[in-house]
């Protein structure tokens, strides 16, 4: 199918892009286009102006700086997948990009697009919730930092203003005795998650949880942070009984709906099982295994 007609600009600078976005009421940013272009073809999205960020310089990088791992919004998922820094020190992120859509889509799909899309089916949002990430947004009045915990408002709705562009996501720099994992059930490669669980943990010197982040994919109107499960584990030992108790709390936090991928009960049970497994793997990695 062919998308409806629209105008298109490909600015070279961020300020031009912000200005272009503000000029049209029904404008939209084009990043990797791997969700947006199919949506436009199905006429589920009909922007009258596309502002293509692909020719804006300086939005593609992966670098550690000032206590954060900064990832430029236009960084392709495949670049993260092949980053040695990520595979060595950011196991949750490394896991996520391996199962996010498929290898060909990952050559164009971007981290900024996956996050700003605010679609609960996307994989990066739960991962960023588990990390406690921040995003950087640039608008006509300059730059602001938005914690990921206040970024997702509702289905397809983020805290970004219409003329703001997400430029960077910041993941807290990897710390000693920390580790993470992302576990996703999908019917086939490239499918959205039936459900997926992101876990990021840090252990103290005694092996108890110093911090825990748990994010859930595609079991609610937005990606969800399993706050009660996180709070339950803080300060506790990484015993199987504790992980199971936390997983039960995560399953309670999930708000799945029945669809072609499974019943509500099935998805809730999946969240429980995958939370235990993701936490177990995260703990193992935090211990250096």
């Amino acid at each position, binding site marked *: 199918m062919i*998308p409806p*007609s629209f*105008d298109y600009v490909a600015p070279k600078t961020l300020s031009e892009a912000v200005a272009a976005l503000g000029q049209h009421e029904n404008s939209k940013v084009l990043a990797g*286009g791997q969700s947006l*272009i199919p949506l436009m073809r199905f006429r589920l999205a009909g922007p009258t102006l596309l502002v293509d960020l692909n020719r804006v310089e300086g939005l593609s990088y992966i670098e550690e700086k000032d206590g954060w791992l900064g990832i430029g919004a236009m960084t392709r998922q495949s670049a993260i997948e092949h980053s040695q820094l990520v595979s060595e020190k950011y196991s949750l992120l490394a896991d996520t990009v391996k199962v996010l*859509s498929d*290898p*060909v889509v990952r050559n*164009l799909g971007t981290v900024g697009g996956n996050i700003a899309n605010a679609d609960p089916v996307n994989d990066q949002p739960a991962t960023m919730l588990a990390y406690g990430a921040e995003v950087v947004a640039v608008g006509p009045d300059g730059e602001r930092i938005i914690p990921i915990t206040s970024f997702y408002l509702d289905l397809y709705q983020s805290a970004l203003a219409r003329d703001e562009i997400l430029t960077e996501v910041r993941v807290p720099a990897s710390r000693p005795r920390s580790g993470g994992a992302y576990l996703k059930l999908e019917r086939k490669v490239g499918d959205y998650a039936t459900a997926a669980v992101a876990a990021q943990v840090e252990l103290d010197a005694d092996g108890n949880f110093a911090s825990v982040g748990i994010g859930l994919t595609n079991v609610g109107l937005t990606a969800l942070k399993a706050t009660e499960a996180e709070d339950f584990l803080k300060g506790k030992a990484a015993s199987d009984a504790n992980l199971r108790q936390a997983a039960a709390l995560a399953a309670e936090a999930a708000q799945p709906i029945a669809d072609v991928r499974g019943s509500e009960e099935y998805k809730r049970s999946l969240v429980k099982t995958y939370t235990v497994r993701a936490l177990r793997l995260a703990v193992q990695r935090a211990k250096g295994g």
Partner: protein
Amino acid sequence: MSKHHINVTINGKSHEADVEARLLLVHFLRENLNMTGTHIGCDTTSCGACTVQLNGKPVKSCAVLAVQADGMEVKTVEGLAQNGNLNLIQQAMHENHGLQCGYCTPGMMMTASAFLERNPHPTEDEIRHAISGNLCRCTGYMNIVKAVQYAADKMAEGG
């Protein structure tokens, strides 16, 4: 709505055209240039039949606008054979019965050849992972994987 003048290098040859912003790269190839080797399968970024290489990387051309390819290099299945001789991945598909109906084959080869350039000594697992965004509805994956392995082995032998 907006029209754009683009210049895209396809299989080494420059093509200029005035296109609407909404024209997809796959339609530009098939309908404007009559290069029908690139197939349309699912139309939803799922199947990979339309895979071409954009600046050396395999992408699904049903989810790229033609205007986005302005100034870039595109390689399609028509660019694989040289002087009428099948290239290595094409020979490998031929020798190993790597195609049944052939519909997925162009996309499969564009993905596989870019993959082998990055990873010339792949394991079977790596091959299966690399082609997991390209669907073969005949389910002929055994022989496709064999073909990619065969091409890798031939490359290691020096041709």
